[in-house]
């Protein structure tokens, strides 16, 4: 008789490699690595079945530090590599790690198609609003006016919003977290993992060396309560130190606005309740920017649909004959003739 021994429970440490971590001291990537290792332990991930895939950048060094399978590909192309890997073996549990440049500049096309296809994997975008690895040039998420070696007078182009892009591309799971918020991040990552299809998670990550403090306007101790809103499905969208603030839908402008409960006749009943299956709400939340609106964190959108790999698997299954087909028959299908 076969005795099935349940796999031993792994701890975050079991997901750490012996490789020396090469990020700068104080880099937000350390915190994310910790959060991911904790998540892997929490969800009971099997190292042999888990693959971390990345492109190029500081963030993309990530796979070397996670004791699972890992592949450090080329700049921007991790989504394409991961799609091929998933087609080869749909049972693998794949995490893609990418930076804002990797995901939205050179790899923007691939990310768009990954999301559109809804390949079943977790896509983590470490947004530090800068090109870290190449020493600090501005990136597609850098705010206008960002001074960098390539924009000494300040950047001119409009930044992209990663979450808005993802929703536009057809992502069915969009969430946000902050590197330093270790209480929150593992929960978001676990939700991403539980979702079938591409789970897109934007993580605000501090680049200590080239863009230190760029998120202070909403992560700073003194402003966090008023500039962040942690959204939860089925709960009213409130924030502020005592939860006194909330988001209300202005039905005239079809926009969200910040209100204070108890002021100007606003009651709790006026506050919009978060529905993570509602794409319009998710889009409105993703568009919010400080200082006029808080930054939305947590699971903005979750509306499962069939994943591409599942569809491929179903199609293959429906065409696979019970017995291995005779290759000679394939070669002889159609018009043939015999010479004696």
């Amino acid at each position: 008789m076969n005795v099935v021994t349940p796999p031993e429970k792994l701890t975050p440490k079991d997901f750490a490699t012996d490789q020396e971590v090469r990020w700068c001291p104080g880099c937000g990537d350390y915190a994310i690595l910790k959060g991911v290792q904790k998540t892997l332990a929490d969800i009971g991930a099997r190292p042999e079945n888990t693959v971390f895939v990345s492109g190029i950048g500081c963030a993309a060094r990530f796979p070397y530090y996670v004791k699972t399978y890992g592949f450090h590909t080329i700049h921007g192309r991790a989504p394409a590599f991961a799609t091929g890997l998933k087609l080869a073996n749909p049972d693998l549990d794949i995490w893609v790690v990418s930076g804002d440049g990797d995901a939205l500049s050179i790899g923007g096309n691939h990310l768009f198609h990954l999301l559109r296809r809804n390949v079943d994997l977790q896509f983590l975008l470490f947004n530090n609003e800068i090109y870290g690895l190449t020493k600090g040039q501005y990136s597609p998420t850098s705010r206008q006016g960002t001074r960098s070696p390539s924009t000494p007078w300040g950047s001119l182009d409009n930044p992209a919003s990663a979450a808005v892009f993802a929703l536009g591309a057809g992502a069915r799971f969009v969430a946000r977290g902050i590197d330093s918020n270790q209480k929150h991040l593992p929960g978001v990552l676990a939700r991403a993992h539980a979702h079938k299809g591409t789970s897109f998670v934007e993580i605000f990550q501090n680049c200590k060396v080239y863009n230190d403090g760029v998120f202070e306007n909403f992560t700073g101790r003194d402003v966090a309560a008023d500039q962040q809103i942690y959204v939860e499905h089925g709960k009213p969208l409130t924030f502020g130190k005592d939860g006194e603030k909330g988001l209300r839908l202005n039905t005239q402008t079809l926009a969200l606005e910040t209100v204070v409960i108890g002021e100007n006749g606003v009651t709790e009943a006026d506050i919009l309740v978060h529905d993570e299956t509602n794409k319009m709400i998710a889009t409105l939340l993703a568009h919010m920017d400080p200082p006029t609106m808080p930054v939305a964190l947590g699971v903005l959108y979750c509306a499962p649909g069939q994943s591409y790999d599942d569809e491929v698997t179903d199609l293959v299954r429906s065409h696979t004959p019970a017995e291995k087909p005779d290759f000679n028959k394939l070669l002889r299908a159609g018009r043939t003739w015999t010479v004696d």
Partner: protein
Amino acid sequence: MSNTALAEKPTDPSQRETVESAVVRFAGDSGDGMQLTGGQFTLATAFAGNDLSTFPDFPAEIRAPAGTTFGVSSFQINFGSRVIKTAGDAFDMLIAMNPAALKVELGGLKQGGVIIADTGSFGERDLRKAGYDSNPLEDGSLQGYHLVALDISKLTMEAVKDTGLSKQEALRCKNMWTLGFVYWMYGRDRKPTADWLIAKFGKRPDVAAANVAAMDAGHTVAETMELPDGVHGFHVDAADIAPGTYRTVTGAEALAWGLAAGTHLADIKMVFASYPITPASQLLHSLSKMIDHNVVTFQAEDEIAAACAAIGASFGGSLGVTSSSGPGIALKTEAIGLAISTELPMIIVNSQRAGPSTGMPTKTEQSDLYQAVLGRNADSPLCVLAARSPADCFDVAIEAVRIAIKYMTPVFVLTDGYIGNAAEPWNIPDINDYAKIPVNFRTDPEGFHPFLRDDDTLARVWAVPGTPGLEHRIGGIERDYDSGNISYDPGNHQKMTDTRFAKIAGIAKDIPDQGVEDGNTSGKLAVVGWGSTYGPISRAVANLRAQGLDVSHIHLRHIWPFPENLGDLLKGFEQVLVPEMNHGQLVNVLRAEYLVPAEGLNKVSGQPFKIIEIEDAIRARLET
């Protein structure tokens, strides 16, 4: 599977002129269905037991304006009772469905050749569109040829008038009328085409019946009309063909089957990732239908994604294959470097076309040899193979799979637009005659690291995700020889670079010595070819050897690494001539490798070599 026996006896050969071979070119407007017509003539000719070779030549425009010279679509076939190696130089018979076709193709017709022209399409407007001031069918300018001028349009309309088709639909049967006529000229059996028409138009029996009626009518007219002086029926004896079951194949089909045969022999899944481009798309189409043979196809968002998906698939334990033409291959370059450095099996098929840049997408060329052998950043060796003919694509593809897996390396397969579209009869092999391709996925964690190598082949282990105890992390950053971990150590980089070279160079020990196709193994002149120049070179060399010239033909399948004996072989010849459809690529690699005084013979017109062009070049070197 249908075995078509020769049901209908062709008309009495004794009343026909027997010829050893013939070249026929069907030419018409893009909308005239010349490719279909040629395809049917090919089948009927194969069933008649002739050897044959075809050359479809069509415009890049999907629907070029009707009647224009750039909208001309042609199909050439060379068939005979002897071995046929090319689609033929000058043609014996030209079918011109409109003035533009006549204008474009007349130059290729032999003096005294037969022209079959549809006078119904030679109206004033048609002539003007083709740039004729007067009607060539009437102004005497075709003296020196045998002209069969018939109002095919009208005759077709009459033949199908009882089928109830609209005028437009009825006129579309013109090509079958013409085919019936040409069938009589060469004593071909109509039945396979009739069967095919009935199957093709299964839902429109009226259309099927009309097409069959048109074909029969064309045949009857040829049989009963008084043909102009000097025009008569021909007979081509069956060729002496090895026994076996045959089919016609194009290069694209043979390549698809060969790749699938390779993964079948290796017993692994193929993940084929590609982005459409002419003339490579055909491979994607063919493989997409093989879903029941453990083939998954993926139409990626671009060529970069296709290459990366293939690499991902190979990391996952499938064989990743990607395919494109020159411009798309250029996009894959960085990814191919990743496959080289992570030492994963991968196949990259390049269906070469005329370039640079967009060039001439539907025209053939061999100008990506440098790109395959050398075209990457850094020292990045890989294996390059080239197919010489449509049927050869099958074996080359299997060889590519074998090398990719055995040596854990990307392998380039070079084919071209000509091979891809051209068809030839193929003695269908038995898959059981091919050696299995062993795949050894590592499972033992004991002593494992991802860059453990086989002592003999230097191939690294293939360890796929999902295997307990083999978790490892690799990527494009240089890896330590002894652990596979990231390494910036100078000595290690030297060692890894040397090892990557030695691994690819070592493939030379595992491939056959280079043989001589025709002629002696030393002598005055060796003609060295690769890829689709095989046909014209072999015919030219055979012709001139029959005339007593000391010339040999050497044809390379293994472009990189070269077979071990190639240098010595070439040094046995006083002169080496390398015909290529490029500005000189293999010739320079040979010169660089072996310091031999090889000379190029180069043609970049988008058209294959003519036999005569190669003969002339050989004569110029041997008859001084």
